[in-house]
């Protein structure tokens, strides 16, 4: 996927009315108007049909008329789905996972590429995407701290009022269970290959993966 991203070039039309100042950053965000490349190109690069891309874009453009989503908006949107708890940490990691160019904003292409991987991609693609989500610092390994962060973020989304009540260090137990399953050579980190192999052995997960096929 990295190759795919690397090969396509984005035609952006940036309207710069102000100089790039820290203070004006926010203003700039509203001034910048990003137009995605053509429909045909996107259709070729993703696994969506034209119609689906149209629907996706119309929704995207309506919510973000400037053509990009910044992290605040992203967090706000994601938080609407999880009103019980605090979704901001997880949304942050999710944002980073979608923002493949790491420039602090998600353009429509990145958005659609991410969705395409998650919904229409091969199993290996999905697992790779998930691995990159967990690998916060992008060093190719998932260590305990990263995993704990992710798990804590997920538990934060549950909020305070759960049944049974969250007692003790539940995230830590969860992380331990995860590492037990994934870390084959017990070296404290999980590499991509270990991850993929371990996931493919997990039947329950494979079944669950199939459930998200027809989301669009």
């Amino acid at each position, binding site marked *: 996927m990295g190759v795919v991203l690397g090969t396509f070039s984005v035609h952006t039309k940036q309207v710069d009315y102000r100089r790039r100042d820290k203070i004006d950053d926010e203003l700039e965000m509203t001034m910048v108007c990003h137009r995605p490349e053509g429909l045909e190109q996107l259709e070729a690069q993703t696994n969506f049909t034209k119609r689906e891309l149209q629907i996706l874009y119309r*929704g995207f453009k309506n919510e973000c008329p400037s053509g990009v989503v910044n992290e605040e908006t992203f967090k706000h949107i994601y938080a609407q789905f999880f009103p019980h708890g605090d979704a901001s940490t997880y949304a942050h990691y999710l944002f980073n996972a979608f923002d493949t160019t790491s420039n602090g904003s998600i353009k429509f292409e990145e958005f659609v590429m991410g969705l395409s991987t998650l919904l229409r991609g091969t199993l290996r693609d999905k697992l790779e995407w998930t691995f990159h*989500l967990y690998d916060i610092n992008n060093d190719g390994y998932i260590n305990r701290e990263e995993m704990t962060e992710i798990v804590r973020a997920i538990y934060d989304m549950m909020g305070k009022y*759960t049944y049974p009540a969250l007692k003790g260090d539940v995230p830590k137990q969860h992380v331990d269970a995860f590492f037990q399953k994934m870390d084959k050579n017990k070296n404290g980190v999980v590499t991509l290959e270990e991850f993929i192999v371990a996931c493919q052995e997990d039947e329950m997960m494979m079944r669950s993966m199939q459930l998200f096929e027809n989301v669009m």
Partner: protein
Amino acid sequence: MAAGVATWMPFARAAAVGWLPLAQQTMPKPPVDKTSRSDEILFVNVSGLRFQTWKNTLDRYPDTLLGSSEKEFFYNEETQEYFFDRDPEMFRHILNFFRTGKLHYPRHECIQAFEEELAFYGIIPEIIGDCCMEEYRDRKKENQERLAEDTEAENAGDAPLPPDATLRDKLWRAFENPHTSTMALVFYYVTGFFIAVSVIANVVETVPCRPLKGSIKDLPCGEKFSVAFSCLDTACVLIFSCEYLMRLYAAPSRCDFARSVMSVIDVVAILPFYIGLIMPENEEVSGAFVTLRVFRVFRIFKFSRHSQGLRILGCTLQACASELGFLLFSLTMAVIIFATVMFYAEKGTKGTTFSSIPASFWYTIVTMTTLGYGDMVPDSIAGKIFGSICSLSGVLVIALPVPVIVSNFARIYHQNQRADKMRAQQKVRQARIRMAKKGATNAFLQHKEDGGLQGGDSDSTAFCVKNRSAFEHQHHHLLQCLEKTTNHEFTDEVTYSEVCMMDSMGFRTSRSTSLSSQQGSTTTCCSRRAKRRAIRLANSTVSVSRGSVQELDTLHVTKTPVGTQYPQSRSSLNARTGDLKLNCTDYTAAIISIPTPPANSPDESLPNSPAIPGILRNSRSSIYNTQETVKISSL
């Protein structure tokens, strides 16, 4: 669920893939999306004006008329469009709300018509964007006040009394609305006349009349014609007392009446006379007695019952008390400063009138208000210098700002009122929006209780589950996935605090935990399609039956696809799927070793006595016509 987040639903669901490696249970099946995914253009005909929009646009707000299936009621088969017999001009704004997510209030429209349209389309007015909110609020307030005035005027006096009105009611009405009957009018004018007579008598009795024969000194009329005046005074007081007593008798709420301003004025007006009667005639107290006579002047305030203008003035003064207070305070500051300065400046002068600082207050005030009586004049040079500074600053401090204050006063007064209004309404507004949001939060919990957890059994699903939009289905599925990932469930605050309390009381909840976590497979995954009731077990029966209530296992209400299995074992309670109404008797039969029929009150929470042998989940929701479930944990 608010706003255009419906657009982002596919994204949120896709992102749920990230939870899968962590999940320790299988994910629930996603809801089947029966509608075709492709977007289509809908035609909406509002009184002849045809609008077209994407279906997705309308689906953004599933809790409105246009976003839900309610619009199907307006679908016209022949013309293949949705027809609404409403105002097409207003509909433009409604549709813009769907398009942009912001509701604007058109300034040229009548506020009531607008609200009616909003109510019809199922949109709460609190959603109005900030740009138009203030205008909307002002117009609404205006409108309400006008309506209130109208209704008040209607109700106020002209409506005839109900035929069974008592004498009290009639009397009270006569007092409050003199123009309703002739008698009342007569009474009104008579009292007014006597108030005037009394005030004039008070004034005249101090005027010097020609002296009596044989004496040179002028006498005040009061002493010359003392008998006449005292008769007059007595008559007036008698009339006022009668009036007050009658009002007191007629008042619907005597305490409130006694506390009201007008009654206080009445009392103060007649009290001096009675005190004078009681007090003995001796020299020492006659001074005090004379002082009391001053209070007779308060009778003039009784005119405020007769004059609307006075009442308004009183209200205005009351309302701008803070501004006046500030003016007074700043004046006092200036007075104290200058008085002190003048006193010390004039201290050296012989025979000076500035004997003390309080004595200098008089000089400062007279000078600052540019009155300049001249009874106190500084002699020393320093005193004259400071005196001139004082008078100059007086001009500035008082004369100049007074018009500014007066005009500012009007502005600040209105502004403050508006700011307070806005603040108060902002809170209310936010509270309402929060409540609507909380509705969404609770919707998931309610959905669980309704038994949305079962798999795709379409018969029973169609039967019991409320009609939910596709969006809600997806959202609930998403939340279920999160629950499965973390092995914990969402609950509400009440249940959570109860569980905490029970834990602290040492009940074993581990069993229930383990049982509830065994919801892996979808069949036993309990179809909690029922409202959970709090079952209150009477303490007495509990203590009696304690021996028999040894072990209550967790009772699950699970769904059976076919047939009716009556409870055979303690550990599982199977209920009929087709049974919508559960009567108590079923339950008593089912729940073994609870001798008493459960006392049901869905809203009562569990009494916190340790004698209760089980934890029961409270239900929060409103009345559903669904089955009941009991989840009792073991001791």
